[in-house]
């Protein structure tokens, strides 16, 4: 009985989490334009979606912004993490505390503050402002992921490389970089995720020339909503689900040979 109650509870929470997503998916196949009347099965909304230029254009914008911002954030953040790691304690904690401000602050305050910055510098709102804004909230996540890897690294490895005749750059590319690579990759992936998902900060820093998918969805939900939005969310859901499954399967595969290798070494 206790076990049943527990499972039922878990079921209810997941029902709560997934009911709205289910509704979106069901409605994406609904021939009726009304959200709550079933008018038969159709693929129409999907084909209409693929011919909607605004949506396709904003999808491209989202991907371009995410990619450019994440690459720059990763470079900037990795270099920053190495620099911060080698600083004295007081300086390090000062820099880190300021770095985390964009994470701790409410998104709307970060968005508004960046908007004021761009207005003050009389910049045109568009791709550039969007990318700059996205970099500034992505870099902290890169630093956050790279710093622990630097701490875990054996300091003497670099000294050994230098003693054996590497110059600083070689020591970095051949020793440090491979050691911290997992953190760099996680930081990059987190940057992409946050950038694609962001609405609030993009909302305050976008221009009419560059609209991300979130902004387009927002303007769609404000007007009379087209069921194309449902089709779009279903596609995004399927895409995310596929990526997660692939990542998880790859993870599981990667984890099992590792164990084997360790066994051999021992």
């Amino acid at each position, binding site marked *: 009985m206790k076990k049943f109650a527990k499972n039922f509870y878990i079921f209810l929470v997941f029902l709560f*989490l997934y009911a709205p997503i289910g509704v979106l998916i069901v409605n994406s196949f609904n021939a009726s334009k009304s959200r709550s009347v079933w008018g038969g099965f159709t693929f129409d909304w999907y084909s209409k979606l693929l011919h909607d230029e605004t949506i396709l254009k904003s999808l491209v914008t989202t991907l371009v912004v995410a990619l450019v911002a994440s690459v720059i954030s990763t470079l900037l953040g990795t270099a920053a993490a190495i620099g911060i790691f080698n*600083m004295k304690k007081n300086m390090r904690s000062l820099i880190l505390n300021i770095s985390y*401000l964009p994470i701790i602050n409410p998104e709307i305050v970060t968005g508004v503050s*960046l908007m004021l910055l761009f*207005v003050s510098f009389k910049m045109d709102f568009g791709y550039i402002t969007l990318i700059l804004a996205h970099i*500034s909230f992505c870099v902290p996540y890169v630093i956050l992921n790279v710093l622990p890897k630097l701490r875990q690294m054996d300091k003497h490895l670099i000294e050994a490389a230098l003693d054996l005749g590497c110059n600083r750059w070689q020591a970095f590319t051949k020793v440090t970089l491979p050691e911290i690579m997992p953190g760099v990759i996680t930081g990059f992936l987190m940057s992409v995720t946050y950038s694609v*998902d962001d609405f609030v900060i993009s909302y305050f820093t976008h221009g009419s020339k560059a609209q991300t998918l979130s902004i387009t969805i927002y303007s769609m939900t404000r007007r009379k909503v087209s069921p194309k939005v449902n089709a779009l*969310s279903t596609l995004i859901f399927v895409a995310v*689900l596929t990526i997660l499954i692939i990542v998880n399967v790859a993870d599981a595969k990667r984890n099992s040979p590792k164990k084997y290798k360790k066994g051999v070494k021992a």
Partner: protein
Amino acid sequence: MNRKSRWAAGPYILWMIIFVIVPLVLIGVFAFTTDAPFDENSKRLTQEELAAIEEEYAETDEELPVTYKTVFTWDNILSVSQYLPVLFNSAWLALIATAICLIIGYPLAYFMSRFRASSQRLVQMLIMLPMWMNFLLRTYAWMTLLEKNGWINRIFGLIGVGPFEMINTQGAVVLGMVYNYLPFMILPLYSVMTKIENHTIEAAQDLGAGSIRVFTKVVIPLSMPGIASGITMVFVPAVSTFIISRMLGGGTNMLIGDLIDLQFLGNAYNPNLGAAISLVLMVFILLCMSITNQLDNGDEEMEGKML
């Protein structure tokens, strides 16, 4: 250690100054300044004087002999006081949402942490999956569910009750907050609870504690850091949201985030006032966070007492 490597942080520090520190300073500057009209002799004009000059020049094509200069003022900060009810309403709704998230999330995180490792992974993924969907789309889906002739009211109709007025209420806004931020409560709780070993719980049981005492004396104190960070991670975005209230609250239940949005991109364009409200919101959240930090410290004190 490696002194030269410090310079690797150089570009980032420059970046941080321009894109983190300067923008926050700008919020302060905007909050305490306003564009005031001055006449040719650099004398500040009152509203009446300005109106008189405008009237005088209304008929002619000449330019007004008025220049605007940025001056220091307390007015913006003082006029935030008239919006304090909105701030308190936002805080109240966010507080209710946070409490509900804690009540729903705590048992779930605990159950999860006692699963087999492979099931834990699966459940964790299932909780994160909705977070990967665009939050506007998820909130939009709730509009479909809560509408007057929406799905929930139809189910109620089948058993002969309703229809209920659900959308465009404060309850709907709280529901939207709970829905969107529940994973932010579950995940930190879960990550703390996986570290509580079964042996600890068994030890308490062996020493004669009943299940309620095990919970209040062992599980809750040990999960305090997770509770503190969960509360922060739900409360901060909930109190400052402006989309959830607009979509589910129907625009009548205005929150502090809506107010800020209105000053910058809405009809009530006034960045100075908007900056002042943002500043107040920021200070308010810092105060709230120092309270939740106390929650965490309280735990440490208790550990001290145990020693």
